[in-house]
C-alpha cells in the first residue's frame, strides 16, 4: 500500500515537526527548569494559539482513529462524540474562567492545589491528583494505539502483519518519550499547528473524493445491508446515546491536560472566547466519524481494511480511505498529521499527569523539594507514566480503543464533586467528598469489569432498567449521593472542614 512518495513526504514532514518541537523550547523563551514554564508554557497563550493548543488536547487519536473505528464496528451510537464536542464547551465557558481566576489569585497550578486549600484536606487533594493521573493513562494509551495504526498502515506489506504491529508499537513509544522530554508544552503547541493544517486539508480532500465518486450513496446501500445500525439509532439506545455525550462532555474539562491547556491561556476572557469557538474544530471530528460508514462506498479501502485481523480492522478505516483516495504526496502528509495527532496529545497528557505527580504527590512526600527538583521529577515521571499507559494498550482490542477514553472518563468524572461543586460552594464535607470519590471510583471499576463479563473490554455501557447507559453516569450518581448524605450527617454532627478564615476570605 505504501509507496516511495508518501513515505518520503511522511518522513520529511516529521523532520519539520521535530525541528518545530526543538524550536518550541526556544520560542518565547522562558526558564524551562521551572514547572510553570515547562508545563504551562508560562501562561501566556492568546486566543489563536490557545485555540490550537486546546484543539490539540481535544482532537486526538480519539478523533482520528478511535471514533471512526468504533462507528465502523458498532454503528451510529458512537456518533455521540459529535454532540459531546459541542456541549462540552458550554460547560467550559462557565467553569474554566472561574477556575482560572481562583488559580491565578492563589497560585494554583492544578485542581488538586485548589481542592487541598478550599476543603482543607491533603487526603482529598492527593486522591484527586491520583485519580487525575490514572485517568490520563488509558487516554495516553489511546494515542499510542493511534500512532501505531498509522505506522501499521505505512509499513503494510513490508513484513508479516504481527511483526509490523509490534515494531510499530515500539517505534511509536520511543518517539513519544523522546519528544516529551525535550520541549514541554511549548513544543507541543507549535506541533499542533502543523498537525491541524495537515488533517484539515486531508479530511476535506477525502470527503470531496467520496462525494465525487458518489460514495455516500453506495456507502448507504452497502452499509444498510449489514446487521449494524449505521444510519440511525435503534430506539433502545437513546439513553445510552445521551448519557455518553452528556457525561463525556462533563468529563473533558476535568482532565488534567485540558485544565492545563486552559490555565496556559493569558486571561479568563481568552479562556472563554477560545472555548466558545472550539465547536468549529469539531466539524473535523464529525466528518472523520463518518469515515466509519463511508468506507462502505469505497471497495478498495474496504478490501484493505479487511486484510487485517478483526481486532485492529477499525483502526485502519481512516488510513485505508486516505491511502486509497488521496494522491500519494497528500496521503503521506495526512498520515503524518494523524501520527502527530496522537503524539502531541500523548505528550501533553503525560506532561499534565507528571505535573500533578510532582506537585501534589511528590511534594507531599518531600516538602522541601527545590523548584528544579520539582521539574526534574515531572520530566522523569512523564516517561514513567507512558510506560504504565502502554499496559492499557494490551487490555483493549485496538478496534475498541474508544473504550480507553471512556474508561478514563468514568474515573475522571469522580473528581467532579470536589472540583466543580467546589467552584460553587465550600459547604461540602471533606470526608464525605473523599468517600464519594472512593465510592465512585470503586463502583465505576466494578461495573466496568462486570459489564464486560470480566473479559476483554469492549463496552462502557451497562444494562439497566432504562436500557444500556454509560457507566460513568452511574458511578458519578453514587459518588454524589455519598457526598450529599455524608455532608448532611457531618452538618448534623457539627463537623466542619476547619478551613482557615484567611483562606476563605481570599477566595
Amino acid at each position: 500500500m505504501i509507496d516511495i512518495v508518501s513515505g518520503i513526504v511522511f518522513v520529511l514532514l516529521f523532520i519539520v515537526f521535530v525541528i518545530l518541537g526543538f524550536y518550541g523550547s526556544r520560542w518565547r523563551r522562558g526558564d524551562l527548569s521551572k514547572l510553570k514554564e515547562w508545563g504551562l508554557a508560562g501562561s501566556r497563550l492568546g486566543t489563536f494559539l490557545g485555540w490550537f493548543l486546546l484543539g490539540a488536547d481535544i482532537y486526538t487519536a480519539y478523533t482520528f482513529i478511535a471514533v471512526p473505528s468504533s462507528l465502523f464496528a458498532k454503528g451510529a451510537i458512537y456518533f455521540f462524540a459529535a454532540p459531546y464536542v459541542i456541549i462540552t464547551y458550554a460547560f467550559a465557558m462557565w467553569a474554566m474562567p472561574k477556575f482560572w481566576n481562583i488559580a491565578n489569585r492563589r497560585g494554583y497550578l492544578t485542581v488538586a492545589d485548589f481542592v487541598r486549600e478550599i476543603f482543607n484536606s491533603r487526603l482529598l487533594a492527593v486522591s484527586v491528583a491520583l485519580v487525575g493521573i490514572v485517568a490520563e493513562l488509558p487516554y495516553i494509551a489511546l494515542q499510542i494505539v493511534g500512532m501505531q495504526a498509522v505506522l501499521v498502515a505505512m509499513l503494510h506489506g513490508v513484513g508479516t502483519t504481527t511483526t509490523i504491529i509490534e515494531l510499530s508499537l515500539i517505534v511509536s513509544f520511543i518517539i513519544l518519550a523522546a519528544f516529551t522530554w525535550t520541549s514541554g508544552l511549548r513544543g507541543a503547541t507549535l506541533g499542533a499547528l502543523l498537525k491541524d493544517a495537515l488533517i484539515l486539508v486531508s479530511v476535506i480532500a477525502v470527503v470531496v473524493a467520496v462525494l465525487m465518486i458518489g460514495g455516500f450513496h453506495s456507502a448507504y446501500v452497502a452499509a444498510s445491508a449489514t446487521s449494524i445500525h449505521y444510519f440511525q439509532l435503534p430506539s433502545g439506545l437513546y439513553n445510552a446515546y445521551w448519557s455518553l455525550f452528556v457525561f463525556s462532555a462533563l468529563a473533558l474539562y476535568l482532565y488534567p491536560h485540558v485544565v492545563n491547556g486552559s490555565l496556559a491561556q493569558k486571561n479568563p476572557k481568552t479562556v472563554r472566547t477560545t472555548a466558545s469557538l472550539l465547536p468549529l474544530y469539531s466539524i473535523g471530528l464529525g466528518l472523520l466519524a463518518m469515515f466509519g460508514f463511508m468506507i462502505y462506498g469505497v471497495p478498495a479501502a474496504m478490501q484493505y481494511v479487511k486484510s487485517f485481523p478483526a481486532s485492529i480492522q477499525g483502526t485502519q478505516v481512516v488510513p485505508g480511505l486516505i491511502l486509497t483516495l488521496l494522491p500519494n504526496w497528500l496521503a503521506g502528509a495526512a498520515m503524518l498529521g494523524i501520527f502527530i495527532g496522537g503524539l502531541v496529545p500523548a505528550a501533553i497528557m503525560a506532561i499534565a499527569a507528571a505535573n500533578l505527580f510532582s506537585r501534589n504527590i511528590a511534594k507531599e512526600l518531600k516538602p522541601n523539594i527545590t523548584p528544579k527538583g520539582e521539574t526534574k521529577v515531572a520530566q522523569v515521571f512523564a516517561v514513567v507514566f507512558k510506560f504504565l499507559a502502554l499496559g492499557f494498550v494490551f487490555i483493549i482490542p485496538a478496534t475498541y480503543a474508544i473504550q480507553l477514553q471512556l474508561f478514563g472518563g468514568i474515573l475522571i468524572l469522580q473528581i467532579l464533586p470536589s472540583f466543580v461543586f467546589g467552584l460553587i460552594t465550600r459547604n461540602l464535607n471533606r470526608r464525605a467528598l473523599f468517600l464519594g470519590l472512593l465510592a465512585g471510583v470503586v463502583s465505576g471499576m466494578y461495573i466496568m469489569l462486570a459489564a464486560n463479563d470480566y473479559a476483554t473490554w469492549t463496552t462502557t455501557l451497562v444494562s439497566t432498567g432504562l436500557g444500556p447507559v454509560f457507566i460513568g453516569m452511574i458511578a458519578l450518581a453514587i459518588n454524589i449521593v455519598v457526598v450529599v448524605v455524608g455532608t448532611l450527617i457531618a452538618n448534623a454532627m457539627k463537623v466542619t472542614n476547619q478551613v482557615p478564615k484567611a483562606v476563605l476570605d481570599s477566595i
Partner: protein
Amino acid sequence: MVKAVYVAIAILLFIPLIALLAIPTYNSVNPTLGGVAFFYWYQILWMPLGALLYYIASVLWNRTEKDSAPGNKPAARRGRRTRR
C-alpha cells in the same frame, strides 16, 4: 439589567444542548443531504451553529463580567505561592 444579560447567556448556552438531547427529533435517515443521513448532518450542523451561539454568549459574558485580573502580563499577576 445585568440579570437579563445572564438569562440571555444561559439561553444561548442551553439551546444546543436541548437541540441535541431531543434525539427522537433527529434520529432518522431522511431528509438526506448529499446522500448523508439526517442523523449525521443535523448534528454536524450544530457545530457551526453552536459556535455562533456560544461566541455571542462569550462576548456578552466577557463584557458584563468585571475585570478581576486586569494585568495580562505574567509579572503583574504572580499569584502568591501558598505552599512552600
